[in-house]
């Protein structure tokens, strides 16, 4: 009985929990609510994934209104996989959040922090699960508005500027998306993803300029949310300014969901032929992806703030994911999708470790973290292992992603792309190496000298993610296998 309504519960549960948090406004109660909700999320997501793998696509009519009139929640392997990533990160982040939030957020705002976190989670899950173009916009804005507030809660007053900057850019992005959806609606008369796709088939797209304009608007609009180069300007400031927990959560989830939505539009709605064969979207994406990989990695080298450094590294990693999309073959797309998951693990672990530094040493500046590897060896070891995954050392998840990407590049006949991936990986060695050098080879001083290991509630989630980086790096059967299926589903489309 209740199993029939799992798709709705996945989104409604955090949405209701968020309002309850706001109403009780007691920080301990809010925390318990957020914790229990976050633990329920992966149970639902995994149940949905198993159901999808067993029985194929799930179509859920929201409120009993049958699609295409009503809003449809439609789950196939691709978005079930993204749901699992999102909810696992959510479940790990809540135990971690207790101490970090208590230290970084004023007491009277902590309940609101959890409220915003749950709203953001609900919005992200909603974008992933929905099969309706306008519903996706509403969830996009729910998650975005919550994100602006989360960022503005950062201790530094520059976080406010970062939040404002993101608000302006994010709203422009979302509005572009709405323009695109509006043009699609005027041409097809429907908002349901599958229905739009079916009716676009009947249109002669070459002569239908609104559809092409819609493709452009939607690509740019979602590109802003993805932080696709050169639309990434909001990301470094936002990640650097936000509270540690919010940064870890956003870095691991928000951009991934936007990438998923982009894939959905490219493959399911406009279709492979329109986007990649008839129009040079892939070529443009390829250039932007490579530019993002280099710009992100190079700028990361010159950052003193570790959070900002990792944020720039995220710009580069998004480049890898888009590279997987732009090489237009099954292997590369598998690499892109598996990197969605792997990057969530890696960046989650790295930002968890950085949150530990912020709490125990009181700083995230590399220059002030001298000797932190001696006073906080367990946290730093996690940072190093996650860093190795980011570089893509064999035996870690980063290697699995890059392996598929390089294979895909060769398959596409573009061996030089594989070479570029190698160079940017070396750049990652440089920026992560700086942290390692300062942390292990200098004498502890300042805040770093007095630092002790963070509590178990923070170490355990960090090490679970690090362990996952290694386990899924050695045995990639599960992640790469699922990603491969998701890639097949996307390339074949809904039909």
């Amino acid at each position, binding site marked *: 009985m209740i199993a029939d309504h799992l798709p709705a519960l996945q989104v409604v549960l955090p949405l209701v929990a968020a309002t309850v948090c706001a109403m009780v406004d007691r920080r301990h109660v809010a925390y318990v609510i957020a914790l229990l909700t976050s633990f329920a999320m992966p149970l639902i997501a995994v149940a949905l994934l198993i159901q999808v793998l067993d029985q194929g696509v799930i179509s859920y009519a929201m409120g009993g209104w049958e699609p295409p009139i009503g809003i449809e929640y439609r789950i196939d392997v691709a978005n079930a996989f993204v749901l699992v990533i999102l909810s696992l990160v959510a479940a790990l982040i809540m135990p971690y959040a207790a101490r970090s939030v208590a230290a970084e957020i004023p007491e009277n705002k902590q309940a609101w922090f959890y409220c915003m976190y749950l709203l953001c989670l609900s919005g992200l899950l909603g974008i992933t699960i929905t099969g309706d173009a306008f519903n996706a916009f509403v969830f996009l804005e729910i998650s975005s508005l919550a994100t602006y507030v989360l960022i503005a809660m950062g201790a530094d007053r520059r976080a406010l500027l970062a939040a*404002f900057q993101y*608000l302006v850019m994010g709203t422009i992005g979302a509005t572009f998306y709405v323009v695109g959806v509006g043009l699609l609606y005027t041409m097809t008369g429907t908002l349901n993803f599958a229905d739009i796709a079916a009716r676009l088939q009947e249109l002669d797209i070459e002569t239908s300029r609104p559809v092409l304009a819609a493709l452009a608007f939607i690509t740019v609009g979602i590109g802003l949310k993805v932080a696709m180069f050169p639309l990434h300007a909001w990301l470094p400031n936002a990640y650097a300014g936000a509270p540690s927990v919010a940064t870890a959560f956003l870095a691991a989830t928000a951009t991934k969901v936007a990438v998923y939505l982009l894939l959905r539009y490219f493959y399911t709605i406009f279709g492979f032929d329109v986007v990649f064969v008839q129009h040079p979207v892939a070529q443009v994406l390829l250039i932007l992806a490579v530019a993002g990989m280099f710009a992100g990695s190079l700028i990361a080298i010159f950052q003193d703030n570790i959070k900002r450094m990792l944020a720039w590294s995220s710009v580069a990693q998004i480049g890898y994911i888009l590279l997987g999309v732009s090489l237009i073959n099954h292997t590369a797309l598998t690499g892109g999708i598996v990197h969605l998951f792997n990057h969530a693990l890696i960046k989650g672990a790295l930002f968890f470790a950085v949150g530990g530094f912020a709490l125990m040493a009181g700083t995230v500046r590399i220059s002030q973290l001298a000797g932190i590897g001696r006073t906080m060896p367990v946290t730093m070891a996690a940072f190093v292992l996650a860093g190795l995954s980011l570089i893509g050392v064999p035996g870690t998840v980063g290697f699995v992603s890059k392996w598929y990407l390089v294979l895909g590049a060769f398959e596409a006949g573009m061996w030089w792309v594989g070479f570029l991936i190698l160079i940017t990986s070396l750049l990652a060695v440089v920026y992560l190496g700086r942290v390692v050098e300062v942390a292990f080879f200098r004498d502890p001083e300042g805040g770093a000298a007095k630092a002790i290991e963070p509590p178990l509630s923070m170490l355990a989630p960090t090490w679970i993610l690090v362990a996952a980086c290694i386990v899924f790096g050695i045995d990639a059967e599960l992640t790469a296998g699922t990603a491969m299926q998701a890639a097949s589903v996307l390339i074949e489309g809904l039909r």
Partner: protein
Amino acid sequence: MIEAIPDLVHHYNHWVSIFLMVCGLYIVVARGNMVKKLVGLTVFQTAVFLLYISAGKILGGTPPIIAEGYEHYANPLPHVLILTAIVVGVATLAVGLGLVVRINEAFGTIEEEEIFERGEQE
């Protein structure tokens, strides 16, 4: 050239909303005052609302009522969608203005240039 003119005039609703959209975007980019930026953002969003609503209108159409004499009616769905989008827009504006108030408290100004100048001095 001349044959194209009726076609362009025919879609004048699109021209109006595109003009407003670009105006809004220009204000966002060109103005350093954060409240003015938000005004520009709102103009930009409202232009898109017009794009939707004008697309739902049928010339000579009536309100969408099921009764005798109401045969050709305007498409009600864009109105409903835009009702939602207006709510989202209001929420965005509220959060944006809230942030501007906080920025004014923290920096003593809402002019971007002044804030960046101070940031360099720090």
